[in-house]
């Protein structure tokens, strides 16, 4: 943190001011603190929750390489998964690229991208959000 008070503050504080000195921090320092939402308190076992790929509202859709929903049979797209992924599997997939059992490794990235694009209200979102909680 710079500790100076002469930066531009207000609505659009990220507009860079040329030649401002940016303090990068020590390699070991931390600049991100994640706020734990109330959601976390209600999740008993986060790693046992499930994410269907795709969600039931998009049943039958294939998953494009970027994680978008595409028509069934689209070339280069991944078919729907036969079973929902468990939280633990999703965590491994997103963090280290480990392909869950029974999942085609060449499609794993498409499934990972689908999960990253989940938004509030979509099936599996709460599970995905819970996985990102710091413990």
């Amino acid at each position, binding site marked *: 943190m710079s500790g100076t008070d002469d930066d531009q503050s207000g609505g659009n504080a990220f507009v860079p001011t040329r030649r401002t000195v940016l303090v990068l921090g020590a390699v070991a320092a931390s600049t991100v603190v*994640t706020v734990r939402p109330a959601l976390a308190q209600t999740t008993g076992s986060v790693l046992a929750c499930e994410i269907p790929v795709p969600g039931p509202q998009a049943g039958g859709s294939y998953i494009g390489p970027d994680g978008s929903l595409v028509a069934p049979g689209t070339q280069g797209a991944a078919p729907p998964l036969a079973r929902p992924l468990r939280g633990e599997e999703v965590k491994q997939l997103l963090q280290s690229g480990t392909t869950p059992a029974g999942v085609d490794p060449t499609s794993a990235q498409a499934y990972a991208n689908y999960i990253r694009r989940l938004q509030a209200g979509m099936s599996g979102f709460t599970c995905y959000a819970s996985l990102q909680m710091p413990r």
Partner: protein
Amino acid sequence: MPGPQYHADPEAAVKSVALDGLSLIFHAPSGMTHIVAPPAPEILAALRLGPAEVGELIARLSAWYDFEGDAAADAIEARLAELESAGLVRRA
């Protein structure tokens, strides 16, 4: 060998509020809120110009800012790792 390309979500997916020296960031895709200190908001702003590897990111930032210290690459990589684990930045 070029390093990984880093992505940040577009501005529309992230709501930021500047506080005194810190910023609050609400990341809509994950529903998570983060409190970040410089240079995290600056890194996110630079990545919104498009995916970049560490060298390109440093070039963008150095067009806007002077750096304090000479270990810029190491420090930026450490900051990227934090932003990645918070879900604010991801690799291609």
